[in-house]
């Protein structure tokens, strides 16, 4: 499966006609049209139909489009899938995913809808949103519950609410959960996407949090405002030196054909699969940043 950079996932309410037209123009790697928290109960059907028409009409180019669907346990979740998949939706974030059974339930529904509409089996992918202590404790089993799962995301607001914890700028209360989410993603070989930063006035705090997310191993960050995109991309963009080293490693690995195992030497240093994977990640980020083609 193609590996893509997911440095930024911009939230946009699905019931806002303007945002459906403009959200992808801000340069985020992914746009997440929200049918869940951003849409009030009485407008769920309208948001879903509007997004369906947008997906049929608008060319979103290279931007990866996701929809945050409602949990399948609600009266809206299944209709979100049944209406949006035939309209072209292929990636969806499953809100409040707490157990592997939630993933399997969505997996089965997607299989059924794909079959009904002649869509390739497995074409629809899932991002699981982990927002409670139970979800975090089940992170590994959720991440490996289906080959459709391409990433897991962490939601700090609901997590702190359900923990009875206070969310602070330093984020110490989230450290363990964040680390567990990243570890689960690494075990499954998928991306981990970090939670949003809602204080738009505190740019310095946001930068610190993004650096910390990147250092922990997150592949990207959910964003609530277009102004956050450039900041995240800058932090997630490798420097020239890192890129040159990584390109050298990737080329040497390709030449030696050791993708399935083995060790090579590059500039006198031993290079094995984890080092190559890291180098590939840097090259991917550099491509997304437009540093190389």
């Amino acid at each position, binding site marked *: 499966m193609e590996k893509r950079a997911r440095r930024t996932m911009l939230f946009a309410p699905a019931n806002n*006609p*303007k945002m*459906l*037209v403009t959200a992808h123009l801000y340069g985020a790697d992914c746009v997440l049209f929200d049918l869940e928290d951003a849409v009030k109960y*009485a407008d769920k*059907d*309208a948001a879903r*139909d*509007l*997004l*369906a*028409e*947008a997906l*049929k*009409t*608008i060319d979103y180019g290279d931007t990866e489009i996701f929809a945050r669907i409602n949990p399948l346990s609600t009266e809206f979740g299944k209709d979100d899938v049944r209406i949006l998949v035939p309209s072209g939706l292929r990636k969806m974030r499953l809100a409040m995913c707490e157990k592997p059974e939630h993933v399997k339930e969505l997996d089965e529904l997607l299989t059924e809808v794909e079959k009904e509409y002649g869509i390739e089996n497995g074409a629809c992918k899932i991002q699981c949103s982990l927002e409670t202590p139970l979800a975090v404790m089940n992170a590994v089993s959720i991440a490996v519950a289906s080959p459709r799962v391409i990433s897991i995301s962490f939601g700090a607001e609901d997590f702190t609410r359900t923990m009875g914890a206070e969310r602070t700028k330093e984020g110490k209360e989230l450290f363990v959960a964040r680390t567990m989410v990243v570890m689960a993603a690494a075990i499954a070989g998928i991306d981990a996407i970090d939670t949003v930063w809602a204080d738009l006035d505190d740019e310095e705090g946001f930068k610190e949090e993004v650096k910390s997310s990147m250092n922990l191993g997150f592949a990207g960050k959910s964003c609530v405002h277009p102004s956050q995109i450039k900041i995240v991309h800058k932090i997630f963009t490798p420097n020239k030196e890192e890129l040159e080293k990584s390109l050298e490693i990737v080329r040497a690995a390709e030449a030696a054909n050791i993708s399935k195992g083995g060790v090579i030497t590059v500039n006198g240093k031993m290079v094995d699969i984890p080092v190559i994977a890291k180098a590939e990640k840097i090259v991917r980020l550099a491509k997304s940043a437009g540093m190389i083609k």
Partner: protein
Amino acid sequence: MVGICGNEKDSDALVTVNLDNIGTEIIIESKIKDMFGKLMEKAVREVLDEMKVENAKVLVQDFGALDFVIKGRTRTAVRRALTGGMK
């Protein structure tokens, strides 16, 4: 059976569908009706055809909506009318 969907906001439209009608009647209220009225009507008609609705009076109050918005709002208004809900 009446269904309403949309908003009186920029780039949006408020669509009212009344299924207690004989035949199809589409009324467009828009500042740009002279230029785009026909296209708006076509968008509504496409949705009615897809949903196999033959009897409906549809009022589109347009506030600068693109075609996909008119289609989405019409589709929801029809669904709401069919389920008897007026929102």
